[in-house]
């Protein structure tokens, strides 16, 4: 049954009816994942940040006040905070998930593929090429094969003569490094979602 309540109404309702929050999640999870993926360029980091943001929002939903703005703006406020903490400390907080008893889940091969599809690299291709030069050789090569040539991880692993997990790790680290470089230069892959 389609849900016709607004985001703000769902947030307010979730205090007494926690399942309403799940509906809010369904509406915005992918947007939030894209938000993080375009800023970190790291699928694993983006996924974890998404999970932690929703966990944080759920844990503190009683603090939400309907000020007339769209309720999702409140969640993106939490997301911005998580992102700035990630760039500052280089680590992802998991305290909200711990408090709620939620597991910290890793990504599977398909997740990487799908999350990378969310990231549109076209707007910053030039800056990206420049930033690529600053990466370690193995990371740069892995990124080139995966992102520019669009090869699958198994093919990247074969070309680099390493395991698929190692290939994924090199791409992931390279993307994270790229994300930091772009962040320092004030570049983002897309406009703010809010």
């Amino acid at each position, binding site marked *: 049954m389609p849900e016709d309540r607004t985001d703000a109404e769902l947030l307010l309702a979730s205090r007494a009816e926690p399942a309403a929050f799940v509906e809010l999640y369904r509406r915005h999870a992918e947007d939030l994942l894209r938000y993080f993926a375009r800023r970190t360029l790291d699928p694993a980091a983006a996924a974890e940040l998404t999970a932690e943001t929703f*966990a944080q929002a*759920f844990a503190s939903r009683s603090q939400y006040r309907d000020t007339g703005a769209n309720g999702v703006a409140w969640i993106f406020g939490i997301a911005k905070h998580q992102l700035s903490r990630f760039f500052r400390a280089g680590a992802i907080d998991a305290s909200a998930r711990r408090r709620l008893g939620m597991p910290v889940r890793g990504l599977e091969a398909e997740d990487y593929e799908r999350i990378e599809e969310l990231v549109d690299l076209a707007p910053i291709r030039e800056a990206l090429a420049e930033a690529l030069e600053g990466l370690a050789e193995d990371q740069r090569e892995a990124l080139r094969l995966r992102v520019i040539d669009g090869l699958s991880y198994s093919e990247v692993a074969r070309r680099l003569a390493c395991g698929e997990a190692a290939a994924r790790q090199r791409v992931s680290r390279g993307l994270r490094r790229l994300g930091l470089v772009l962040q320092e230069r004030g570049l983002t892959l897309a406009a703010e979602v809010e």
Partner: protein
Amino acid sequence: MPTTIPYLERLEADLELVAEDAAAGRKAVPGQGGRRRRPAQGAWMRWSGAAAALLVVAWGIGSLSGQSEMALTASEHEAGSTVAGGGEATSAPRAGAPDALGVSPDLADEEAALGTARDGSPYAADIAKIDRDGTLSLKLEEGEFKPAFNEVVLIADRNGGVLLASETHGPDSGTLTLRIPAVNFDRAFAAVSQLGAVRDSTVTGKDVTAEYLDLRAHLRIAKGRRDVIFGLYDRATTISDTLRIYDELEQVQLRIEQTQGRLNYLDQQTSISTLEVTLSEREPEPAAQQQGSGVENPSLTRAWERAVQGFLGVIATVIVGLGYLVPLGILVGIGLLVFMLVRRRGPAAS
């Protein structure tokens, strides 16, 4: 909008579980997930464990500290005497050793001018003010108690002192309390210790020279102030001036008398020492029997008292340990804070 990313589907399932838990625990903890209690309990247990570990460490440090103190006391005891007090003290009798630390001509003159020195006394110019007392316990051969008792009285007399009190316990043991001029204390102590085998001896000393000199300076200033006020008193022309000056004069006079009283007390304390001598032909009874402790005569009252003492002892030991740990903890905390700040700025700067 249903997602097509498997990770988000798994995350949705996790959130649904959390929401169900929250719905189940809504009445008990409004707005909180039911699962929250488990981690919270875990956190509580972690904090309790940390606190218990801290207390154990504090107790360990306190025990070590106490043991080192006991070892120090024991080593002093083995030397044949215990030294206590805040100033000059001796660990063995010094026959005929001078009590003075030295004489300052200026201060001797000052004392003479103040009139606090007792002219003609052997220590009129002695500015070292040390309050000394001692105890001496002697083991005598059989039949020596009475001659030794009389000899102690004679020693006190020969050194200008007196027998203040005495107490005998049967025909072969007793205690004498002597008051002896401080300047002769060491000589008398040495003479008495020759009368038998020294079982135990204690000399305590408290150096009050600094306080004594301070008081003399205060007295001199107060007297000078009194002279000035006297001058003003003579020149007062109005009744209000006279009354005000009189009040002031009264206060200064009171201060002079208080200071003089304290000086006199210190003079008396430092010029006469107390020596308590215990003479006995018998070996002392074992402490366990004297105090009735141990398991030979069990008593619930005594057991309770010992339990309370033990409890207080552990608390005291923990407090001593915390005294060491708290400043260390503060230093470590500051270090961690600096480390975290540097670490935070590191990625931002890079």
